[in-house]
């Protein structure tokens, strides 16, 4: 989260014992840019050895879903023929995702609209929500983005196999390739297909993680410069301006990565519908 939470002085809860083990000293005045990603168990639920606790990550997922669902419901319930401001936001969102899906998958792809729209809205709202100070960024954890990417991956495999049967595997055999090259090309196609969920999830996760850490590192400069007296406070204006600029960039990245995730999901779903290229 941008703001001050990450710049809080390193709390000794979990980093200190590990640092002591490694023979390092934890400077108490050092800022910790990854403290913001720490999971807290809000409602501890333990079943045997499994940990089903309701964490701050789960809380913000619930907030994301409730916020987007309530917004979409409230803005469309009046169903004005001439849309108001809020209703046109929802209509633009709908039309944006629908045209994205139409461009990538053609007219038959619209049955995937609920999936792509949910993915896009969830990621967009989660990314934007994470930009508020002290808020948790759901998409900055690999486990969340992997779950979303695997959902798309298995949808492609299941729908592709159900719709085309064994002809789905034509996906790995491009037409017009010389027979000599075919084993190599098929191997490359299979590897690139299997690595899709990896790049799909890591792209979103790493973008959010890197952006938020960068933000915290610059915010840490403000704190450490501010502690150096009047001259330091005058110098702290520079990293403060940088923090504002990076926050603006992060708003762009938040929307962009939601868009990219949805576009890639559309392209992968297109393979399930039209495997023969």
């Amino acid at each position, binding site marked *: 989260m941008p703001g001050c939470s990450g710049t809080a002085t390193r709390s000794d809860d979990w980093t200190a014992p590990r640092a002591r083990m490694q023979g*390092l000293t934890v400077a108490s005045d050092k800022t910790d840019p990854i403290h913001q990603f720490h999971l807290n168990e809000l409602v501890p639920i333990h079943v045997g050895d499994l940990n089903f606790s309701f964490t701050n990550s789960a809380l913000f997922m619930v907030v994301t879903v409730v916020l987007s669902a309530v917004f979409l419901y409230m803005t469309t319930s009046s169903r004005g023929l001439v849309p108001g401001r809020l209703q046109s936001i929802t209509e633009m969102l709908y039309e944006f995702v629908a045209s994205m899906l139409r461009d990538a998958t053609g007219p038959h792809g619209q049955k995937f609209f609920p999936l792509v729209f949910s993915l896009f809205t969830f990621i967009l709202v989660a990314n934007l929500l994470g930009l508020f100070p002290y808020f948790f960024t759901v998409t900055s954890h690999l486990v969340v983005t992997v779950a979303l990417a695997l959902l798309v991956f298995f949808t492609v495999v299941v729908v592709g196999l159900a719709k085309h049967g064994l002809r789905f595997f034509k996906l790995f055999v491009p037409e017009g390739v010389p027979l000599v090259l075919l084993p190599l090309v098929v191997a490359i196609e299979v590897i690139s297909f299997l690595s899709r969920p990896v790049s799909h999830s*890591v792209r979103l996760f790493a*973008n959010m993680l*890197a952006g938020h850490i960068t933000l915290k590192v610059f915010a840490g400069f403000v704190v450490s410069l501010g502690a150096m007296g009047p001259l330091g406070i005058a110098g702290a204006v520079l990293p403060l301006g940088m923090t504002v600029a990076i926050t603006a960039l992060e708003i762009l990245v938040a929307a962009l990565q939601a868009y990219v995730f949805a576009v*890639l999901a559309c392209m992968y779903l297109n393979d399930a519908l039209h495997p023969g290229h």
Partner: protein
Amino acid sequence: MEAEAAKFIGAGIACLGMGGAGIGLGNIFGSYLAGALRNPSAADGQFGRLIFGFAVTEALGIFALLIALLLLFAV
């Protein structure tokens, strides 16, 4: 060499990978601008592909940054 020093050197080397992503991104936007100025009417239709290419290329730079951050904070 101390492990701590090796960690920082490794993080610095990992950051070099971002240079490649920078070249790639420059190439993408440069080519887009060159094409868009030749045929401005077709430019808007290619915006989606521009962003797609940007994201795919940028991801590689982000991976390099991720390795650097992991070395600094998580290892």
